[in-house]
C-alpha cells in the first residue's frame, strides 16, 4: 500500500498501462514537452517518445478524432482534455461518433478509448472552466462514465477504463488532484491508500460502501463522496450513524448497493456538485423512490450545486457547491430533525 495523491494515482495508472500495452498512447494539449498542465504526464515524453505522448494543437475535435479512428483501427488512445469543459467544443465527436459507432455499424467495430481530464469547480476559474458535466456523458448509450473519489479508485478505475473496449469518459475532480494523503486519511483512515499491485483495478458498476452506518444513507460520487464522509463525521458527533455510498461509476450505474443500504437505513441523501436540475442526482433519487418506495421513511433529499454559471468571486464560489454542512442538514431532515 502506498499513500498517494489523486494526481499521482492518475500518473501511476497511465504509466503502468503504457508499460504493459504498447497500443496505448496519450494525446492532448501540453501532455508532452510541457510535462502536462497539471503534471500527471511529467516525464512521459522522455520515457515513451513522441508517438506515444502526442502534443497536439488546441484542436479538441482533432484530438478526439485521432482517438476514435485509431481506436477503431486497434490502438488504445487516451485523449486528455486540458479541462473536461473543453470537450464541449468536440462534443459531437463523443456523442454522435464514439458512442454510436459500435451500434450503428452492427457491432463491426469497437472504440476502446479513454477521454479524461480535470473537471469540476477549482480555484476561481469561473463560468467556463468550473463545470462538472458528467450527466452530458452518462445520458448517452455507448459511453461509460467514471467518477472516482479516492486515489485508489482513481487509479483502479482509470486502469479499468484503459483496458475497456468501449469509449470511457473519466471525470477527474480538480479539487481532489493535490489533496494531501494526510488530509484524506484524517477524513477516513486509509482513504489515501492505493494497492501497489500493478494488476490492481476497480471494476465498473460497483458502488462502494465507504462507511457503514444505520440511520441514513449518504450517496455521492467524486468530490461529493468526500463531502459525504466529512458530513458523516459531523453526524457521528451528534449521534447519527450515516452510511456513505460512493457510486464510483455513473454508467454503468450500480443502484443495488445504495438501495441495499437504504433498505437498512430507510433514509437517503443524494449529493452532487453540479447543477441539480436534470443532474445525475435526479436519476439516483428517482430510482430510489421508484425501487425502494416501501422502504423509505422520508422523502429522498437532494443536495446539489447552485443552478448558476460558476461565479468567480471566492465567497460566491464557496457557497455555490454543497458543503458538508448542507449534507448534515439534509440528513437531519430525513430524520425529522
Amino acid at each position: 500500500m502506498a499513500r498517494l495523491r489523486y494526481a499521482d494515482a492518475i500518473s501511476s495508472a497511465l504509466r503502468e498501462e503504457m508499460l504493459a500495452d504498447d497500443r496505448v498512447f496519450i494525446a492532448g494539449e501540453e501532455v508532452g514537452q510541457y510535462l502536462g498542465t497539471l503534471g500527471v504526464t511529467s516525464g512521459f515524453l522522455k520515457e515513451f517518445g513522441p508517438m506515444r505522448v502526442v502534443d497536439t494543437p488546441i484542436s479538441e475535435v482533432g484530438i478526439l478524432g485521432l482517438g476514435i479512428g485509431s481506436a477503431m483501427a486497434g490502438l488504445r488512445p487516451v485523449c486528455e482534455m486540458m479541462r473536461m469543459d473543453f470537450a464541449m467544443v468536440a462534443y459531437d465527436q463523443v456523442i454522435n461518433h464514439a458512442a454510436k459507432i459500435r451500434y450503428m455499424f452492427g457491432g463491426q467495430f469497437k472504440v476502446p478509448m479513454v477521454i479524461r481530464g480535470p473537471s469540476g469547480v477549482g480555484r476561481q476559474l469561473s463560468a467556463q472552466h468550473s463545470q462538472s458535466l458528467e450527466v452530458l456523458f452518462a445520458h448517452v448509450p455507448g459511453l461509460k462514465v467514471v467518477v472516482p473519489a479516492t486515489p485508489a479508485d482513481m487509479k483502479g478505475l482509470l486502469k479499468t477504463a484503459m483496458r475497456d473496449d468501449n469509449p470511457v469518459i473519466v471525470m477527474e475532480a480538480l479539487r481532489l488532484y493535490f489533496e494531501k494523503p494526510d488530509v484524506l486519511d484524517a477524513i477516513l483512515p486509509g482513504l489515501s491508500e492505493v494497492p501497489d499491485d500493478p494488476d490492481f483495478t476497480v471494476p465498473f458498476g460497483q458502488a462502494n460502501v465507504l462507511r457503514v452506518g444505520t440511520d441514513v444513507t449518504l450517496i455521492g460520487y467524486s468530490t461529493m463522496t468526500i463531502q459525504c464522509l466529512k458530513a458523516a463525521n459531523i453526524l457521528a458527533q451528534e449521534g447519527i450513524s450515516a452510511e456513505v455510498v460512493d457510486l464510483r461509476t455513473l454508467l454503468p450505474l450500480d443502484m443495488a448497493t445504495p438501495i441495499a443500504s437504504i433498505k437498512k437505513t430507510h433514509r437517503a441523501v443524494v449529493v452532487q456538485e453540479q447543477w441539480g436540475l436534470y443532474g445525475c442526482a435526479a436519476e439516483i433519487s428517482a430510482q430510489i423512490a421508484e425501487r425502494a418506495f416501501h422502504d423509505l421513511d422520508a422523502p429522498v433529499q437532494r443536495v446539489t450545486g447552485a443552478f448558476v454559471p460558476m461565479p468567480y468571486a471566492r465567497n460566491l464560489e464557496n457557497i455555490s457547491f454543497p458543503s458538508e454542512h448542507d449534507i448534515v442538514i439534509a440528513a437531519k431532515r430525513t430524520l425529522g430533525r
Partner: protein
Amino acid sequence: MAKKPTLDLTKYVRFYEQMVYIREFEELIGKEWNNAAAHGMGGYMHLYSGEEAIAVGLIGGMDLSAGDCFIGHYRDHGYALAAGSDPGEVMAEICGKATGCSKGKGGSMHICDAARGFYGGYGIVGGNVPIALGLGWALKYRNQKNVCACFFGDGSMNQGAFHETLNMAQLYKVPVIFALENNGYAMGTSIERSHANQNLRSRVDSFAMRSVTINGQDIFEVHEQMSQIIQEMKEDPHPVFVEFKTYRYHGHGAADTPVTQSTYRTRDEVARAKEEKDPIKFAQAKLIDAGVLTNEMIADIQARAYASAEAAMKFSDESPYPDPSELIKDVYA
C-alpha cells in the same frame, strides 16, 4: 499525369463494369423508392449516380487486403460496392434487414465493411474527417506501408472539424487521402453561395498540404493519378488532398424532389452533365476506341449489373427484419 506509359486496359474494363454495377444499383433504389416502405427503406437515401468514377478509381488503387482502408460520408453505397462488398448485404442494409452489413441498424448512411477496410459512412457532415486522422495515425504508429482514404463533400469543408483535422494530418504526416467529392452543391447550396473562396484547394494550401485537382468523371485520370500518389504516400507517409470535380445526378436525397431541385439548379444543367460528363459514357467511349470493349460486352455488363441489383433487392426482400432482441445488442463491446 502518371508516368506509366501504357494503361492496363483489362483493369479499366473491370472498373467500367464496377461503375455500371453501382449505377444500376443506385438507379434501382431510385426507382423502388416509390415502394420504399414495402422494401423497408427509409431515411434520407443519398444516391451516388454520376460520381462513380471516384470511388471505383480511388478504391481500385488501394490494396485493401494488404491493409489500406477508407472511410466515407453518408453517400456511401458506391464505396462499399467499389470495395467489393456483397451487393445483397449492402441492399439489405439499405432496407434495414437483419442480413445487412450493419445488421440493419445503420441503414443507407451507415454502410460499412470491416473485412474490406471500410470504416463506414457517417451522417454528420464533416464528422468522419477527424476519424480519418486517427485511422491514418494508426497506420503510421504501426509503421504500416498503407494509406487511408477519406471521402467527403464540398459542404464538409465548412465544418470546423475539417480544418482541425487537416492541420493535424499535415503536422503528423499521416498517410491519409482527403478525397473531396466536389459536386458543386451541398444540398441546395452551391459552392458560390457557401465558400468565400471558390478555389477549395486554397484551404489546404493554408496547411501546406500537398494537393491536386482531378476530373472525377474520368476514371483513367482518377485511377492513374491516385495510383501514383498512393505509391508515393506508401514510400513516404504524408497526407494528400484531392479535389475530384464531379456532379450528382439525383437530388441530394430522396426528399430533394425535382420541385425542390428547381430552387438551385435547372433540369438543363442536370441533363447537360449527364450528356457531357457521365463517367460511364466517358469510359465506354475510350474503351471502345481502344478496342477492349464491344457493344456486345456492354450489353452483357449492363444486363449483369441490372441482374445483380435485382438479385440484391431480392435477397433483401427475402431477408427478415432484425429480431426485436437485436434492439439492445451491440451498444457495448
